[in-house]
């Protein structure tokens, strides 16, 4: 018994950090703010049996006053930003979904802005519906594990370029990851596509050859690196898709990414290659985006 009391004392002695108070009040304020703003669009989806409720919550993760004041400061110029997220959370024993939806704001080209945001919502809606279906199916056969997570990351945000990557992770025993990236020209307010950067389709082969070369090099350098490259006896990367996931870095370099399992075993995760500009110089339309 005394041992237990000693342990309890240790437990009670866990140091309380000074930040705790702030974290608590900030979290409360965040929810208060979003609820006062989103009262009308607050939607709740509940299954009668769900342990913790499943909720659709739209939240703006940015101080609105700050956003307001920033837009009035002319020096800061463009305020194209990924500001708000929509979160969908389902938690139920062995089933969980955690979907975060990015939302682009500040573009004057509303058509582009809306089409991006609608796409993000649609992607997550599809994920959510797939998840629900999967969950029902698993329940019918007596249960199982299923999880889906979607999140996003702003990979590049310069005066010219905004690049947002979205990740979908499906967890059923092991997990798969799909990554999609949108790159926007903030000055001209257009969505950049991979083919639009090049004169013709020649880039597909140039980039594919370069990446295959890099894969071979990396494999030779470290046996822990494994890539699948197509050959006579093996299935693997033949060439990149014309619309392969790509991004432009802050220093104007092109990167090409592959989903988990697309060109390598799962432990390699999502793999990304930076393409030296010299390799594709001949194919590029201009050096406006990529230098």
């Amino acid at each position, binding site marked *: 018994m005394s041992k237990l009391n000693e342990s309890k004392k240790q*437990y009670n002695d866990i140091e309380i950090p000074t930040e705790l108070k702030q974290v608590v009040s900030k979290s409360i304020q965040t*929810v208060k703010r979003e*609820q006062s703003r989103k009262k009308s669009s607050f939607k709740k989806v509940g299954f009668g049996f769900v342990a913790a409720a499943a909720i659709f919550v739209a939240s703006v993760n940015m101080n609105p006053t700050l956003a307001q004041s920033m837009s009035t400061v002319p020096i800061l110029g463009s305020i194209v930003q990924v500001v708000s997220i929509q979160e969908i959370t389902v938690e139920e024993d062995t089933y969980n979904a955690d979907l975060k939806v990015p939302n682009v704001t500040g573009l004057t080209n509303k058509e582009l802005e809306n089409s991006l945001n609608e796409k993000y919502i649609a992607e997550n809606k599809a994920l959510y519906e797939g998840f629900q279906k999967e969950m029902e199916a698993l329940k019918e056969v007596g249960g199982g594990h299923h999880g889906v997570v979607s999140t996003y990351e702003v990979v590049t945000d310069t005066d010219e370029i905004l690049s947002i990557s979205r990740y979908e992770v499906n967890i059923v025993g092991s997990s798969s990851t799909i990554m999609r990236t949108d790159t926007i020209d903030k000055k001209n307010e257009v969505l950049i596509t991979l083919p639009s950067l090049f004169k013709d389709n020649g880039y597909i082969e140039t980039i594919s050859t370069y990446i295959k070369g890099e894969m071979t090099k990396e494999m030779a350098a470290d046996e822990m690196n494994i890539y699948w490259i197509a050959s006579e006896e093996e299935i693997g990367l033949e060439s990149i898709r014309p619309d392969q996931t790509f991004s432009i870095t802050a220093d104007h370099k092109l990167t090409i990414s592959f989903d988990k399992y697309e060109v390598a075993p799962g432990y390699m995760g999502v793999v990304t290659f930076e393409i030296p500009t010299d390799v594709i110089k001949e194919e590029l339309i201009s050096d406006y985006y990529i230098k």
Partner: protein
Amino acid sequence: MTKSEKFQLVENYIVENQHAHYRLAFSYVKNKESALDIIQDSIMKALRSIDSLEQTEYLKTWFYRILINTSIDFIHKNKRMTVVEDEVLDFHLPSHEMDVPDIDLYEAIDHLAPKQKTLIILRFFEDMKIEDIATTLGVNQNTIKTRLYTALRKLRTNMEEKVKV
């Protein structure tokens, strides 16, 4: 009770019990930043799903459930916790024959699976009643008792006889 009164009630509860909540979160992840993340997540989840709290007398168990689920999820997502096999655990824990007097029970509790750890913390550190633990975890009382005994046995202490659970 109106929704805003309920919100206020939950808010007060969260503010008043923040230290206990932090300790619980910390005991899972063992680092300040992660524990603070869990606190933030749990509070936001709780306040957003305030409708799922049907009876306010279950406020504590309801919040603990969210807090515990968030902590365990966090561990799974971050893989900070390595699963300890029984053999390994047995090796590290004192055996029946050798009664090592200075075994750090607190550390031993850390080596339990998250779910067993939850039981020990709630019952002995948080002094929660079996009944409330059952509500928190959504399992019936007998199951809780059984699991608690299993967890205690795993800790290889002689508390089974001494503590009335």
